[in-house]
């Protein structure tokens, strides 16, 4: 069986994957610390404590809560009010275990965030260029005409519901995978970069059209936060799918590039 190892992921894909695993984790956690400095989100050009927020995380000194629009959810212990080192009650939006650094330090969090943003942005650019040149986009991510059919998509949803992930044979992405990878690589990740740039006052002078695209700096900040939340959902789903579809094979293929193929026994135990 060991000789059934076949090449799956190119080196560029593997390097980029693990670079992102580190960079996105640091960006998320330092980003949550930066958010703690002003845990309110607005739409439009401006927004401060004097204006109405569409999302806020705050506390009443005894309870923590998240408010979205007019709906309030109590989140004591996690959001708004949590315990820090030595059981000290901390009145911060995101708790210390979710932020870099764990304590409140805006200067340090910004430094982490901007350094890893360079890694992330250069990595994404490099991956896109390499994938265009080596055919990864054309061969694996390109969604073909036949795949857009509702019947085909429905069929793949049913396959996923039955935990059959390799119905088309290992080595190709199914349509739900393509939708999520294309959505993340070509929509969410670039949006993170451009909404991030749109928050920089110097970039606003250099590229004023960025503000027009996102309808204002505070809208860009909100979209930055929403895209970060969507990326978290993607990563969670991605990890679940790795577990369900054979974690050893999946992780090996992302490290060595090789995957064990056939006889294909899927998670329901039925040979296909």
């Amino acid at each position, binding site marked *: 069986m060991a000789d059934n190892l076949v090449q799956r992921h190119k080196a560029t894909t593997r390097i980029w994957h693990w670079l992102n695993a580190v960079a996105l984790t640091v960006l998320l956690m330092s980003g949550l610390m930066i958010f703690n400095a002003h845990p309110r989100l607005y739409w439009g*050009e401006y927004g401060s404590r004097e204006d109405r927020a569409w999302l806020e995380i705050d506390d009443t000194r005894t309870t923590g809560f998240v408010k979205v629009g007019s709906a309030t959810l109590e989140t004591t212990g996690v959001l708004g009010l949590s315990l820090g080192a030595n*059981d000290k009650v901390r009145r911060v939006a995101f708790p210390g*275990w979710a932020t870099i650094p764990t304590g409140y330090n805006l200067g340090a969090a910004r430094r982490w965030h901007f350094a890893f943003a360079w890694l992330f942005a250069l990595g994404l650019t490099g991956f896109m260029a390499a994938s265009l040149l080596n055919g990864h986009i054309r061969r694996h991510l390109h969604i073909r005409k036949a795949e857009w059919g509702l019947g085909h998509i429905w069929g793949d949803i049913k396959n996923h519901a039955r935990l059959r992930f390799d119905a088309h044979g290992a080595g190709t992405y199914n349509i739900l995978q393509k939708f999520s990878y294309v959505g993340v690589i070509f929509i969410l990740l670039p949006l993170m970069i451009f909404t991030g740039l749109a928050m920089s006052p110097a970039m606003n002078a250099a590229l004023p059209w960025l503000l027009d695209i996102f309808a204002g700096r505070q809208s860009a900040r909100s979209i930055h936060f929403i895209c970060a939340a969507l990326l978290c959902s993607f990563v969670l789903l991605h990890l679940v799918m790795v577990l369900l579809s054979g974690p050893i094979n999946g992780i090996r293929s992302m490290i060595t590039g090789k995957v064990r193929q056939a006889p294909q026994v899927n998670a329901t135990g039925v040979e296909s």
Partner: protein
Amino acid sequence: MKSDRDAIGRRALLRGATLGGSALILSGCDALNESDTFRSALRTAESLNKVVHRSLMDRAALAPEFIASDISPVFKTNGSLTGTSAEYLAHVDNKFADWKLRVDGMVANPMDVSLNTLRAMPARTQITRHDCVEGWSAIAQWQGTPLRLLLQQAGLSARAKYIVFHCADNYGAAPYYESIDLIDAFHPQTILAWGMNGEMLPVKYGAPVRLRVERQLGYKQAKYVMRIEATDDLTKFHVGKGGYWEDVGDYEWYAGI
């Protein structure tokens, strides 16, 4: 209060059980954050932002300007809400009639400029967005004297590299101050604002004059400016990082991002 603390305690226990791994990563990150080598590596990456901004973007590019209907209904106050020196408080009582802005350092003609003289100089009016490093923004109309006119009048030395703004407010224990380079000092939107939203600049927003340097964050917008000093070396002021928050909060000196 006790029961609240218990509730938090129970959740903390659950949390601890599920997030032990994350705690390991985090203590690693905090340890890295304490390492001077790592910190200076991060700092190098951050100073890259300034290099890229200065070399790739038009140095005279204007910050976006807005229209009157975009102005924030209430402009959030922040930092000091008044100057604190005895000299400043006396000027407030006297409605700044005897107040004079000192312009000195590496200039040929050190000057003392009264508020009326300042207001009689050619002025620029601009509706711009103020972005706090914390993340919030507020929009206001500012009216003031372009800084470059003052520097030209004072005869700025060719060896000067920075303009330092000394302020009348102590924020916490130390006096507030800020500094910018000459690219920003001579930028057309860089003004010493004495008017805000069509009125005299109120005390809580920095009267009699505050700096507006529109392509940088809020902590650069020094309020209660009493003295402008041209220099070629920022390390000789206070802690030496070029500004109050740079010294105290370890914020980056270049605040364009």
